[in-house]
């Protein structure tokens, strides 16, 4: 599938943090009763991680589960694995009321890494990014300047951001701008 290109074809920028468009990521929107064992099993089965709590994401490399809303999960996995995963979910949830759709191409994924990653987010999102408030494993759906965005943080304190594909360039520019050398705030990373 050499034809598949992500919104910004892995553009990157080095400011006081590193900003990278992370390329295509497999993503499935799974809606259903998150309390149901079948739904949980279907999700954890394809993602290979534990069911996340409300407001959290569990992830290992390209795979993971993120809590989107009381009846919605985001299943993440390598881009090429989506069809197989969808087939597996369909098989597993036969007869259940649920919705599972491929949304990989509707999204752009960014990774920002470096000591100032929290501050870059705090310039753009109305979220408490201090270390005691936003910890690795938490997942936040919010607004980034003028567009919707969601993000979580890995153990390495790199922030992974998901936006809609059509505004990928806007989001990249926002991040670039916020990461410009000399604009460190020195508040969250004193």
């Amino acid at each position, binding site marked *: 599938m050499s034809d598949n290109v992500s919104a910004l074809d892995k553009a990157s920028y080095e400011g006081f943090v590193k900003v990278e468009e992370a390329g295509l990521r497999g993503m499935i929107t799974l809606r*259903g009763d998150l309390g149901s064992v079948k739904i949980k099993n279907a999700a954890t089965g394809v993602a290979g991680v534990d069911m996340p709590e409300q407001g959290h994401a569990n992830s290992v490399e390209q795979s993971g589960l993120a809590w989107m809303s009381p009846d919605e999960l985001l299943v993440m996995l390598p881009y090429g694995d989506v069809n197989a995963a969808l087939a597996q979910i369909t098989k597993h949830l036969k007869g259940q*009321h649920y919705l599972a*759709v491929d949304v990989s*191409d509707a999204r752009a994924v960014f990774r920002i890494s470096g000591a100032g990653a929290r501050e870059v987010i705090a310039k753009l999102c109305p979220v408490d990014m201090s270390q005691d408030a936003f910890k690795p494993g938490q997942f936040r759906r919010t607004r980034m300047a003028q567009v919707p965005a969601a993000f979580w943080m890995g153990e390495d304190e790199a922030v992974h951001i998901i936006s809609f594909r059509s505004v990928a360039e806007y989001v990249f520019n926002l991040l670039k701008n*916020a990461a*410009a*050398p*000399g604009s460190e705030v020195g508040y969250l990373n004193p």
Partner: protein
Amino acid sequence: MSTRLATGGRLLNKTCALNFTFNGKRMSGHAGDTLASALLANDQMLIGRSFKYHRPRGVVASGAEEPNGLVGMGEGAKFEPNQRVTTTELFEGLTAKSQNHWPSLVFDLGAVNTKLARFLPGGFYYKTFIQPRAFWKHVYEPIIRKSAGLGKAPKDRDTDKYEHFYAFVDVLIIGGGIAGLQAARAAGQAGAKVLLLEQTAHWGGRAPVDGGTVDGHPVEAFIENTVSELQAMKNVTLRNRTMGSGVYDHGYVLGYERVGDHQPGAAGPRHRLWRIRAGQVIAATGAIERPLSFAGNDIPGVLLASAIRDYVVNYGVSVGDRTVVVTNNDDAYRTAITLKKQGLIVPVILDARAEGGGELALQARELGIRVENGKAIAKVKGHKRVTGVEICAQAGEGAVLEEIDCDAVAMSGGWSPVVHLWSHCGGKLNWDEANAMFRPDATRPPTGADGEGFVSAAGAANGALEIQELLKDADAAGKAAAKATGHSPKRKAAPKGEAEIETPMQPVWLMPQGAHVKLRMKSWLDYQNDVKVSDIQLAAREGYESVEHAKRYTTIGMATDQGKLSNINGLAILSDALNQPIPQTGTTTFRPPYTPISMASIAGEARDECFQPLRKTPIHAWHEENGVYWEPVGAWRRPYCYQKPGESIDEAVNREVINTRKSLGLLDASTLGKIIVKGPDAGRFLDMLYTNMMSTLNPGRCRYGLMCNENGFLMDDGVVAKLDDETYLCHTTTGGAEVIHGHMEEWLQTEWWDWKVFTANLTEQYAQIAVVGPMARKTLEKLTDEDLSAEGLSFMGWKDYTLDGIHARIYRISFSGELSYEIAVRASEGRALWDKLMQAGAEFDVTPYGTETLHILRAEKGFIMIGDETDGTIIPQDLGLHWAISKKKDDFLGKRAQQRAHMTDPNRWQLVGLETLDGSVLPEGALATAEGVNANGQRNLQGRVTSTYHSATLGRGIAMGLVFGGPERMGEVLSFAKLDGTDVQAMIVDPIFFDKDGEKQNVR
């Protein structure tokens, strides 16, 4: 003259000289200077001209309250007007220009206004220019705007950067004076997360200038120790050069950080707007000294007593050699003592109080300073500079007792707590009779969602002006705020502050108290807007009794300093004129920002490429490379048409229309909304949303549907495809994608929460390309061997295909009347498919087309467009769409509304086609006129144009419109008014102009 002293200047780094220019004149100062102190050090006392009378003006204050010292700073793209000299830190190469003068600062023609002052009283503009009415806009206003007004608007684009920053804290303290520092310590020791903001570059506020001791040590030591203690605390952040600009609901506070103002050219933003959520806010914002109202109190060289002291102590600058001090309180004696100790001359201290002052007065006398109790200034002499004062008794009417030569006057009318931040969100004030000031009423704070107060005031801002009380008050505020945010304050006593005991001040609102009118007309209240005591008194006589009315009538407090010096004096004069106590008059409303903040900081990152998000389809780059002329559609950019070299927009559109009808067109339809609706109740749900029946659709089939809101009005349309037994894909208009998805979720979450339906908005998951025209099938067949025949994929059917390796879902639907396929592929393969189609279509002269061609093709076929034929007041029945409204269904959204009398009124305008008799194109939105006029004397109407185009296919103008009587009037000719006053005749025709039998879309 004002000059730099040999000693003093605790904020200066005298080893670092900085060069700057004022009105082109080269001057020099030191690192640590403000522009104000540097100008004074260079004997530049005259800094600007007042707003109305163009009176000469010099600095009167030393901080954010300064009303006079406003200059234009920088050049070109860095130019900014109305910069306050007292809060501008000096930097190398600073260029400043004075404002509001013509032709020059020293010789100003507008100053003739001051001679006309008796003809320019408060309310002058309103009275004089009200008649004739039409003159205001065209004659008076332009002239007045030229003569009045402060800085010029910048002409060039700002090249600096700005940004926002979100912070969340338990306790936010505004003001880094000793009260703020102590409050921060108390709250920080309790473990609260504290942010302390200070608007200047220094900690400790004015305490080092005013003196006193804390726990037996000089106050400087207390400041130094507290700052280092706070810096060491992990839960406390100190941020200087950051002003607390406004307090808003729910603990939301704006902080305005001037990151780069003092170091232009450095990397990073110039300003940063802090958007802070705080559990508790402490306003430790200090107090501002009030001027005294005596004649000539605006002449350059008359300053606040505290400011004169600040310039000496902080910047080593003397404002004058001989300074007369005039006061109604003890604090101003500190200025006299400071000056005397510097070896400067204080000819006299005029204390308006008959009994005089206390300990400080004694000290002054011991230093040999002449002190006159019960005395006042009758008049300041001088024009561009103080030359002397005339002395009188405060109790009298101004009979001159003595004249004293001096070149500066230090005045003090007492202190007003800075209650702005307390008041922004509704904190109430009490009038403190003893100190003649408004102070926060702790029992009536601004309240949050829980009904509890979330702002407190501490120290001088709370009315605790003297160090003894101030530190205790601040300590208590810090502890209380920590407690309110769930922390346990330490049981440690507040540090003990000590200073000279002061005797009570005595309110003096007019000097002398019985000043006759000539003096009152020269006694300034508002320096920037030129409001005098006599103006307020006139306003009161003319019936402007409310303080808010008097403010607007006289413009007191409405200048860029927002009346920091003038408001209390003004309302005291008003109260006196109305014979009522001050609290009955009350204050005007305190509104954010505390001092003006840059517009650019509010915009933050939203400029240039980040100004607004632009949504781009996966094929956007191709459009850009191929002569696209863009049309904004919501946040998307869609091709309107593609211009070939030398082609006009009209020519491009006509070519696209002709080629598509003749052979093959391609449209990027990726922006169309695509919403998945799935579940056992999905069919039932769609039957409620659409006016027609969707549940009967078979998998593999598509149906066009209309969506109405509860009021029956048409809100969206599109093709619904049934994917499997319980899954539907609903196409919406481009603009409807998010709205309709939200509409669906709203009904599912609020009304039909028990229905088993899930939705997902997949708009961006797919790139969608319409392949349109007689050669459409032949083109696709080059990319696949699968069956695309009329039977293999029939009209209004869909099927999955592989097109040259790309998985595609093909819908055979048509919005053009041509043989047409809409192909959905994953967004990441959209561009690849487009390229393949361009290549495969090359032999058929493939023509990418834009939205205008899309519109023309659909209009030729009489298809409606949401937003053209509909405007939120149109029901499907108006558009002849009865066929798409199910009669079998019990209910759907809009059904009952469409049965209302007004909706079934046969007089509603109906959709028809319109053809001009001369073949021309009807103007957009043109109205069909009828005989007679309505009750308002306007021409009666009988219809309007909703869509109008030149049809290249038919070689003439075509239009659709809503007309009284509708299709029943087929063949009648209507007259449409054009903007040039002429009319154009158009005949009512069938709205289907082309291929009435629909043969073309069935090409085999």
